[in-house]
């Protein structure tokens, strides 16, 4: 059975890779993202939104949550955080790998590091479920551990998760292979073209609505995996996101 295989994945050479996780006021899954980096074998570094210091990290994760309560628009206020300037500068050229999860994805679109935007789910409710996804692009900094076209199950949990963009942008994303994750088994929130995650033109910046950091540890993940049968809460399909970036940076 899959699910008890965590330990086997860890590769000690990865521990030198430093992955920063930014905490904004209202971030919720920041400690979870740090744990995911650690379980994947890397070193997690806590970053503070108000600092101007990226602490020499090799990659950055903008975690989920409700930064500033998401009252205005999800991610709208956070994008102006001092640390976002550093991140934007380093990410734009294609060098710094940046992953935005859920609220982090929203921050990246607000900061124009990724196109499109998120609006309320079409059913208007918060939705928490184990979501099946297709990995459409395995050449990004965050997906190289997966085979192209492979399927994974990771938790989805949000209120403003409906990805929207104009047709031209959508066509462009599709044409350039920049749709990274697509919902399978029914569209959970009305996202255009079932898009769950996208990347920029360099493949270093990736944003997705579902939460891979909640499918990295057997016993605390989803009840299912696209890779085979699992124990109760044994799904660890999200771990590949974190090993991807660690491996890429180690081999650099």
């Amino acid at each position, binding site marked *: 059975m899959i699910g008890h295989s965590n330990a086997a994945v860890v590769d000690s050479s990865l521990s030198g890779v430093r992955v920063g996780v930014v905490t904004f006021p209202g971030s*919720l899954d920041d400690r979870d993202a740090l744990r995911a980096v650690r379980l994947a074998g890397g070193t997690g570094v806590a970053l503070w939104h108000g600092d101007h210091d990226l602490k020499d990290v090799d990659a950055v994760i903008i975690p989920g949550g409700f930064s500033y309560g998401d009252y205005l628009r999800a991610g709208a206020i956070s994008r102006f955080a001092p640390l976002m300037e550093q991140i934007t500068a380093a990410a734009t050229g294609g060098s710094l790998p940046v992953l935005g999860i859920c609220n982090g994805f929203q921050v990246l679109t607000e900061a124009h590091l990724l196109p499109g935007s998120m609006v309320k789910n079409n059913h208007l409710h918060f939705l928490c479920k184990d979501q099946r996804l297709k990995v459409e692009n395995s050449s990004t900094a965050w997906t190289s551990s997966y085979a192209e076209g492979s399927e994974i199950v990771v938790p989805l949990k949000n209120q403003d998760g409906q990805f929207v963009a104009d047709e031209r942008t959508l066509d462009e994303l599709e044409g350039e292979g920049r749709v990274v994750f697509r919902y399978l088994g029914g569209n959970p929130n009305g996202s255009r073209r079932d898009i769950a995650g996208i990347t920029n033109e360099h493949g270093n910046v990736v944003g997705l609505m579902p939460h891979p950091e909640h499918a990295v540890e057997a016993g605390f993940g989803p009840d299912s995996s696209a890779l085979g049968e699992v124990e109760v809460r044994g799904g660890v399909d999200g771990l590949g996101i974190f090993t991807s970036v660690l491996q890429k940076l180690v081999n650099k």
Partner: protein
Amino acid sequence: MTTETMSKKFNIDTVEHAEQTPEQPLPWAELGLKENEYLRVVEILGRRPTAAELAMYSVMWSEHCSYKSSKVHLRQFGDKVTEAMKEHLLVGIGENAGVVDIGDGWAVTFKVESHNHPSFVEPYQGAATGVGGIVRDIISMGARPVAVMDPLRFGAIDHPDTPRLVHGIVSGIGGYGNSLGLPNIGGEVVFDSVYQGNPLVNALAVGVLRHEDIRLANASGVGNRVVLFGARTGGDGIGGASVLASESFDSSKPSKRPAVQVGDPFAEKVLIECCLELFKASVVEGIQDLGAAGISCATSELASNGDGGMHVELTSVLLRDPSLTPGEILMSESQERMMAVVTPENTAAFEAIMDKWNVEYSWLGEVTDTGRLIIEWAGEKIVDVDPRTVAHDGPVYERPYSRPEWLDGVQADSFAGDRPSDLKAAVLELMASPNMCSKDWITNQYDRYVQGNTALAMPDDAGVVRVDEETGLGIALSTDANGRYSYLNPYDGARLALAEAYRNVATSGAKPMAVTDCLNFGSPEDPEVMWQFAESVRGLADACQELGVPVTGGNVSLYNQTGGVAIHPTPVVGVLGVFDDVARRTPSGWREDGQAIYLLGT
């Protein structure tokens, strides 16, 4: 001084003024005090109270804050506890929440509370602020909140008002809890027409802490400073106190005070992180959350649990609504506020943490050795009381109770239908009833993953959360109640509620350790309701003793009735269990083919 403060000062009812105008009529009845209670206040003070004192006594002596009708019965939870049951109790009944030792230097604090009436008036905000309030209780013990649960009761599923309540309450609980990053690990949903005009919204929160981090609500150390931080104080929740709008009592100026409180989960999330940083840096001596009765409660409880007195300047309170009078400021129930006691040496460190999290604060005064709680308004004394008389010496009632006459009839009325011929159809019908069918449509609106430690949640009978990542040490929680059983037999109903929650925790694989409860009943002034209450408490206390688990805290919610009709007695019981390693938890239900099925018990 602003002109606003000036004009308020002009009208202010000072202690001196109270001494000079003993005959001044006061609106004590409008504030909910009974005549004997008012006379008792006069006796304690040796004069008439000032408007501000009246405000404090009236809220602190309300049923909600003083437990005046339930106290005599609740004592059994303490009386029936044995030394063995107390072995793992670090903090027992009486504090904001009980604290249980779970080993390896870890402790857990948990409590369930009601927000029934506000949720009927404004379902979303009522439920949201219910979650907010119980979470602040947990923070104030020094703990990081790690999960919430929500036992709910609604009226009939097909009643036209039910959708408003169900959707509002569920989104309110989700909206607030999800935004705080607290996994929702369980709860209940029951539909029954007795709850039509009186839904029950109980919210449970659980937090974890190291033994050395336990904080208590007391103000000690002469010269230590008292600080209020978090949200600004507005006119929230003091609609009924609008009689205090003009504290010279000579004007009928209408007061526009919102009876409804709006929650700000973002402010609370920041408050959680900021409090945890305060605890880690050891910069607070005592801390108290502000809930019902606001500053009245926080100052009088902190002062009376400490060893001296307290001196407070009320104009220092940061206001959202500058027109508030001193009495209203004392009664305001604005959410997302905390009060702390800080040594002078630690003030700079305290302020640095507030600034980091962008939390507003104001220094209100200091701890004294006078034994008095003195509150001033721009230097004029408006409150001068012994804080114990406000916080602890409220009235206690031995309300009459009697077994309802209708009970025998109800108990005799057994079900006499024929055994259904088509068992399959009967099972299907049963399973499709609103109380039996899947609750996914609710639980899917709650985040059960956040924090990454949830080992079991929906659809399992108990929620399980890991506490220590190194060892797997963790806890299980379940809440249960059955109002129908309790209606038929309140003594056994309470015992069954405990037994069910206890079983749910035990079958998950945890060792049951402690109990919290939320006792939802009708009016204590009705002797039959009072009997249901007395029987339920007796049943719960007896059952706790039999099972060897102590009640560590909880909440009493009375007056749950519409017109003359009370809800079914609904004692919601929460049981906490401990795992040495959550990897050993057992989910409910069968997952694989070929497993053998056994039926255990009688």
